[in-house]
């Protein structure tokens, strides 16, 4: 397992980028955690529908996005808000989706991020198609798809990996192995010793990294992105991390896992080790910490305010995006719907 930054902030080998970028990504991780904790809190207040927290997985997501170009595709899941945001998806739309508003699935025109996949595994093949479309159209854009350890048991994982390798498309498969698929532990998800080794069967490189290590994740994704962009085809990356929270707000992990395990992973926190590293390089202090936390809080508060201030879809609008132009039978249903709401 590749590691560049130990849990106690010690550097193994060389840092993949300078202190300035490290500070930027540290700040991004603080923003991500602020969003995530806000999401959990808002759900408890009944202001969001089910929420799937990613606390503990910030380095895997922020590190991966940092290694992409701004126009690379990201096709991710309901637990990947940090990754999606880092690639341009606005916080308020991520919140909007969770409040139960379809418009949360509609990022601005320039943002190359698909709305989050709610079904498990089906989105990986989409990333393969997107990467292939870019290759056929002669661009140098690539695609990254993110999924969990549970998704590797789905048939579409196999079909996506196989298609990507056969057609040598520029697709990065980022598995955030967070140890648990709802209640099923990683050991019972697959008999394979690692998820990374599954790559061998498809004829593509597989890399296992410490998923709580910003540097190692960045380095692995950068290596995969360079390979993808230069026509070298797909890569599977297993980022070993941990889901510190429940599967979603509807789940009670105390039914199936030992809280001591959660404690242990809290000591391998992805943000704390970067803080120590920055501190040792004279690039972190309490004052800056307080400043970025305040900024994060303000930005996240503004985002939920924006999401909640969107009026719900108007009468009949639930039909308006079924087709480009509503066919006559849907026009008729729309009239009936609107009439019924009067």
């Amino acid at each position, binding site marked *: 397992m590749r590691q560049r930054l130990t849990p106690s902030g010690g550097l193994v080998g060389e840092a993949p980028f300078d202190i300035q970028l490290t500070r930027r990504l540290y700040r991004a991780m603080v923003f991500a955690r602020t969003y995530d904790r806000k999401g959990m809190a808002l759900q408890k207040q009944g202001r969001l529908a089910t929420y799937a927290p990613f606390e503990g997985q910030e380095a895997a997501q922020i590190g991966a996005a940092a290694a992409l170009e701004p126009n690379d595709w990201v096709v991710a899941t309901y637990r990947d808000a940090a990754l999606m945001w880092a690639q341009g998806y606005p916080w308020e739309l991520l919140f909007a989706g969770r409040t139960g508003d379809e418009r949360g*699935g*509609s990022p601005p025109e320039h943002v190359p991020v698909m709305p989050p996949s709610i079904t498990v595994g089906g989105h990986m*093949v989409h990333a393969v*198609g997107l990467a292939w479309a870019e290759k056929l159209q002669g661009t140098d854009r690539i695609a990254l798809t993110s999924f969990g350890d549970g998704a590797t048991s789905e048939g579409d994982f196999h*079909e996506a990996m196989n298609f990507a390798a056969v057609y040598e498309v520029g697709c990065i498969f980022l598995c955030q192995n967070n140890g648990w698929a709802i209640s099923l532990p990683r050991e019972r998800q697959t008999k394979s010793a690692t998820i990374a080794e599954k790559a061998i069967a498809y004829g593509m490189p597989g890399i296992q990294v410490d998923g709580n290590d910003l540097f190692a994740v960045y380095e692995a994704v950068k290596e995969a992105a360079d390979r993808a962009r230069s026509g070298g085809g797909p890569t599977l990356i297993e980022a070993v991390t941990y889901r510190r929270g429940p599967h979603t707000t509807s789940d009670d992990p105390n039914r199936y896992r030992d809280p001591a395990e959660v404690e242990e992973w809290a000591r391998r926190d992805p943000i704390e080790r970067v803080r120590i590293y920055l501190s040792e390089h004279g690039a972190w202090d309490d004052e800056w910490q307080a400043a970025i936390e305040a900024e994060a809080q303000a930005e996240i508060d503004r985002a939920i305010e924006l999401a909640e201030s969107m009026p719900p879809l108007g009468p009949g609008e639930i039909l308006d995006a079924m087709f480009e132009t509503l066919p*006559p039978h849907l026009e008729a249903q729309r009239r009936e719907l609107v009439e019924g709401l009067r």
Partner: protein
Amino acid sequence: MRVLTMAKALNDALDVGLEKDSHVMIMGEDVGRTGGVFRITDGLAEKYGEHRVVDTPVAESGIIGVAFGLAVGGMRPVAELQFMGFSYPAFDQIISHVSRIRNRSQHRFTAPMVIRIPYGGGIGAAEHHSESAEAIYAHTPGLKVVVPSTPYDAKGLLLAAIADPDPVVFCEPIRLYRAVKEEVPEGWYEVEIGRARVEREGADVTLISWGAMMLETRKAADRLADDGVSAEVIDVRSLVPFDAEAVTASVSKTGRAVIVHEAPRTAGFGAEIAATIAEHCLYSLEAPVLRVTGWDSVFPLKRSEHQYLPSVERIVAAARKTLEA
């Protein structure tokens, strides 16, 4: 003008589509080198290259899911699934993603793609090779579902499907691939999706069908004409959008309707048509609306196919029953 089979007309449509737009591509199992199990894509890989006519691994969910990504990414994929019974592994991709991405993203991302599915029985094939599951697709919001029954319509509807901004499930009646020939124009032309075709005008009863059952329905109309019964014949052509106007106009005139389809009866698309007739022209009806359909059985194997498929006799008998009412 050239006289073509439906198989050749479909091949011609794909040829014209590939020629006109460099974003159009064909993908599926064996569609390249061998030209597909029914030879619908014959010669296209040689002409346009293996990057535009792509042989895929044997993985239906992958074919549709990858085609979906290609479509979102700006391509115009035409994916072939070899038989309707093999479309079920891809059903999750079709129902969960292809049909929904426009709504999920509120028009931000769209999947303009065609899913070609040879379907229907009567060719003595193995299990899973004779299914008629068009109603399942018609029941899925966000898909257009098209079924041609003539070479002319096959080409025009396929080109309309390729040009359509939304996903189209294009059902090709296997039994008709080489059963009928007619004049088919060269080059690009479209038959509008969502319009039924009144194939034969009549005054006494309306026979409504689509796909391969149009063969039996036409013969039944001939048989009825021999006995002095004037049957109007409607080829529905498009299940979604369904041309309710054409059907209700006809039934309002004749007062009688017989719906013929090969798929099982329960929750078949015939039920939707019967309900539409009841909603819009109940007071014009002279007799109950009848359905002549396949049974609610697994599609039988070769030796018993004749028990399942609606026959000319069954259609004639149903039409007579409406006249006796």
